[in-house]
């Protein structure tokens, strides 16, 4: 079996995987050896048969289309398309911005109107010859006086240890809603406390406590227990805040 070393490498030779110098040597051997030439021919034919037999399965046109569709390049928007997209988005943002600003301005206007009305009530009441309908510094007299006159009740703070004193109260109206108007005194300052049902005005801010300055009056407003409170007066902001704290505590809300 002198051809044994050649035959062991026959497949590698026919697969074209031998180094080029060995390929040349193999070529020469096969041409001169009938046995190896026959083996090589048989194996080449076998390879061809495998190739022919193995080309067996063909995909359907529908499946090819499906796969192509799943991988095909998606059309992308060009610079012009992008420009239009950006312009559209900008326009939408601008419109939303204007709407929000307009809404904000409208709300601010309504709020301003509300506080102006309260300031008017405060000034008008103090200017009248009888600012209060119930004249008493006793909260236990003032509070029951409102019974049957307004559709709600409220608690008033104990003022024994404070500089504030209660002068009295009267029924008042804001946007056709009846409410309580109480007047307190601090040194020479007279301060109005308005109490209305919480829904008295949709224009008032939703924040729990608002400290503001309107027509140079200091104001503080908040919602508590279904009621809306607003204090307005020419006393300092700190004094207004202190009175607000007293009222909040009396109604069970921690002062802040």
């Amino acid at each position, binding site marked *: 079996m002198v051809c044994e070393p050649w035959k062991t490498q026959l497949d590698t030779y026919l697969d074209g995987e031998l180094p080029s110098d060995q390929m040349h040597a193999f070529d020469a051997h096969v041409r001169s050896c009938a046995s190896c030439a026959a083996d090589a021919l048989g194996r080449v034919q*076998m390879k061809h048969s495998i190739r022919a037999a193995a080309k067996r399965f063909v995909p359907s046109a529908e499946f090819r289309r499906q796969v192509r569709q799943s991988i*095909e390049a998606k*059309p992308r928007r060009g610079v012009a398309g992008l420009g239009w997209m950006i312009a559209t988005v900008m326009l939408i943002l601008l419109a939303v911005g204007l709407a929000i600003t307009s809404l904000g301005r409208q709300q601010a206007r309504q709020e301003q109107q509300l506080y102006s009305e309260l300031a008017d009530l405060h000034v008008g009441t103090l200017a009248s010859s009888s600012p209060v309908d119930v004249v008493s510094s006793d909260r236990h007299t003032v509070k029951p006086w409102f019974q049957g006159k307004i559709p709600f009740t409220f608690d008033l703070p104990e003022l024994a240890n404070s500089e504030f004193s209660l002068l009295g109260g009267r029924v008042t109206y804001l946007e056709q809603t009846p409410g309580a108007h109480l007047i307190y005194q601090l040194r020479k300052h007279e301060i109005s406390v308005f109490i209305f049902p919480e829904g008295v005005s949709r224009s008032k801010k939703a924040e729990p406590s608002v400290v503001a300055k309107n027509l140079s009056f200091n104001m503080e407003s908040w919602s508590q227990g279904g009621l809306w409170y607003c204090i307005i007066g020419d006393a300092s902001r700190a004094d207004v805040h202190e009175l607000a704290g007293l009222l909040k505590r009396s109604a069970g809300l921690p002062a802040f």
Partner: protein
Amino acid sequence: MYVSGTDPQSDSFEELAMPLFDQLYNFAHWLTQNREETEDLVQETYAKALKGFSSFQSGTNFRAWMYRILRNTFLTSRTGLKATLTVSLDVEEGGPALASERETPETVFMERSDWQRVQRAIDDLPVVFREVLLLCDLEEMSYREIAETLSVPMGTVMSRLSRARRMLAERLRP
């Protein structure tokens, strides 16, 4: 408003991958031996390849890369796992067969073969031998390409190929 233009990466993937579609489908069918599974396998292969195309290194062998994805996808499928588990553990043993062991099967093969018999014989081969035989004789991949596709050393490719041919010849023997 649109202007002409496509994603260049997706564009070149389609250009490279679609010409391999028929070959990959055929190879996938030989692996799964089932049309529905073949379609699932090919679809998944293309989806994975497109997704991972950015990681494909330009200048390397795209065909081997696609076949590798297909084969790995197959191996993790239920059919693939089942097929590989049935392979005897001694498959890597041996090495190139000696000529004396071959008993010139080619002669027998040439006399008896027809396409259907060859196809059945290929079908009967365990998947690790079927795939290496098809990659070499059908796809005409080099040993290096096959090694790359199967993620095995070239020596393993050669021994599996030799064993596959021997087994095929035995199946075709009368």
